[in-house]
């Protein structure tokens, strides 16, 4: 090694060693190396630290001159949820207290929203996920109010789930206290009562959640009348951020429900939807019934038939649960498996009460044979995979045979090689939203089969109740 007097009597190097000598409790420095400063606050800094195996953790260092007790430890110790960090250890030094927690890998929401082009639907979905985390905190026997909900404290994990960090100032709700004496929180996101005129409760977090939703949609936590926000979401923001806590949502579950029934998808289609609704209403008045739906574009989202803000994975899980609730079936439990014609037949028999002979018929395999005695268009083998249009055809036909009967699938194919019945079913399904989340073009999975049937159930149910 060259000897360029790397550290011979280097005053600056001595100064470095001296300056950091008793910065941290000795037991802490034995266990962890400080790698990065992630954030600075009033008497409390956050660091990325590493154990000897190279695993990342987060350490909060509280200056004892500013902080008398360590709030963070106690709160995190009581929590056990994948969306919040876990307490690892705490250390006492002469001048500071240190709390170590698990490191949550991912991207802070403020960066995530800048780096990704998020649709209103994505944003509503992220906010709804955050509602679940807050529900866990708020619904504990001793509710925990986070009080510093802001994009920087929400981590979007690589798998798309969200986590909430920075529980410094979160504390259990003490109903006996009149008001909070010290200001905690981040100004733009903090509810008015956090400035001290009354005790904060779960509704303070709901306020911050509303501000966060506004930030995600408009790029700013502050109200800006020049930026148009999709109205149903704007309404949610307005109610969540009402000055008077009494006028806000009482509970995050209500916020979540509102988010799920808001329909960000139809924003561009609202006028078209309105016209369609008028035509549909006129058509219904003339007792044209379901046939009217062939003629008009009808969005089931308008009547909340199908949850609007779910990603495809959540949709499948939701549909499997729906089928289990509605029909008491476990047929769809292995959602990742490939669906078979046998399963499709079982579904029709078990869930929709079709007669076994009607579903199986006596047709020979491979022959067209749809008739009054035979539900299925072809004599498929039970082990065959299910094409999407087969599932859709069955799901539509089981609810209203009149939609497809006149164009039986098994009639001879048209010039394009398509079977007219299947085409009618697919067109109807697309208009009505039955295909929502079913993205596989050909052979579908068990989960997607559940999805198609669940969507059809919901659409027909919504349409039936709308008729009367």
């Amino acid at each position, binding site marked *: *090694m060259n000897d*360029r007097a*790397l*550290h011979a009597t280097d005053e*600056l*190097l001595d*100064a*470095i*060693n*001296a*300056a*950091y*000598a008793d*910065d941290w409790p000795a037991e802490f420095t034995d266990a962890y*190396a*400080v*790698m*990065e*400063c*992630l954030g*600075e606050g009033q008497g409390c*800094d956050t*660091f990325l630290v*590493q154990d*000897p*195996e*190279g695993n990342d953790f987060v350490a909060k260092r509280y200056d004892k001159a500013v902080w008398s007790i360590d709030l963070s430890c106690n709160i995190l110790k009581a929590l056990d949820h994948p969306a919040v960090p876990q307490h690892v250890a705490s250390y006492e030094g002469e*001048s500071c207290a240190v709390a170590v927690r698990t490191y949550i890998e991912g991207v802070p929401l403020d*960066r995530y929203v800048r780096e990704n082009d998020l649709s209103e639907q994505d944003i509503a979905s992220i906010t709804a996920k955050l509602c679940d985390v807050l529900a866990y905190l708020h619904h504990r026997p001793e509710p925990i109010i986070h009080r510093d909900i802001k994009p920087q404290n929400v981590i979007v994990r690589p798998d798309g789930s969200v986590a909430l960090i920075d529980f410094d100032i979160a504390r259990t709700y003490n109903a006996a206290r009149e008001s909070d004496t010290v200001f905690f929180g981040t100004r733009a996101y903090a509810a008015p009562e956090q400035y001290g005129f009354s005790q904060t409760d779960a509704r303070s977090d709901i306020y911050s959640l509303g501000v966060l939703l506004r930030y995600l949609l408009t790029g700013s936590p502050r109200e800006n009348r020049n930026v148009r926000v999709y109205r149903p979401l704007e309404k949610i923001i307005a109610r969540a951020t009402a000055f008077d806590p009494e006028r806000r949502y009482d509970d995050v579950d209500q916020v979540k429900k509102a988010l799920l029934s808001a329909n960000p998808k139809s924003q561009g289609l609202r006028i078209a939807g309105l016209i369609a609704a008028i035509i549909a209403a006129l058509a219904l008045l003339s007792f044209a019934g379901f046939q009217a739906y062939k003629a008009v574009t009808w969005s089931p989202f308008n009547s909340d038939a199908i949850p609007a803000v779910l990603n495809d994975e959540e949709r499948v899980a939701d549909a499997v649960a729906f089928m289990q609730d509605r029909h008491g079936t476990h047929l769809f439990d292995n959602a990742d498996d490939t669906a078979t014609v046998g399963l499709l037949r079982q579904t029709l028999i078990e869930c929709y009460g079709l007669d076994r002979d009607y579903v199986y018929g006596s047709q020979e395999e491979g022959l067209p044979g749809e008739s009054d005695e035979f539900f299925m268009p072809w004599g498929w083998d039970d082990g065959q995979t299910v094409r999407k249009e087969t599932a859709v055809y069955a799901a539509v036909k089981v609810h209203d045979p009149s939609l497809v009967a006149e164009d039986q699938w098994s009639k001879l194919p048209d010039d394009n090689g398509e079977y007219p019945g299947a085409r009618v079913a697919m067109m109807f399904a697309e208009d009505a939203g039955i295909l929502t989340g079913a993205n596989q073009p050909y052979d579908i999975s068990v989960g997607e089969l559940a999805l198609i049937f669940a969507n059809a159930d919901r659409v027909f149910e919504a349409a039936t109740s709308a008729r009367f």
Partner: protein
Amino acid sequence: MGSEKGISTGELWARLFKTPSIGSYLDENSGTTLPSFADYIAQLSDERALKHETVIARAGVERSFGHRLFNGTRNPSRDTVLQLALGLGLGCDESQQLLKVAGMSPLHPKVKRDAVVAYCLHNGRTLMDAQELLYENGLPLLGGAKHE
């Protein structure tokens, strides 16, 4: 506290950096668009008449990974950014800018490991010098080597 140590971390930082305050680094208007990391390291290499190959070697970065950094197909970790800063022979302020372009947290006066790296950057030391100093101080080496 500071008087007992003779020199505070703030003063220390002032001696290592032209812009001593971490705040001035963070507050610089975020509205201006930053160059891509790949473009920026290419530009810095050109300014110093250094071949990419040379920078990669001096930064102690695996060769093919280094080239991917230069053509923008891979993103660096914070340690890799610091290695490249040493490989490029950047000063402290330039290194902070490089970290910023990479979207990484800056060298921070409250982190001793950062101070040691800043010291090496300030004095134009090599990567090997920096690793030796880190090792002697019981700090994790740059580039993911486990510390003891």
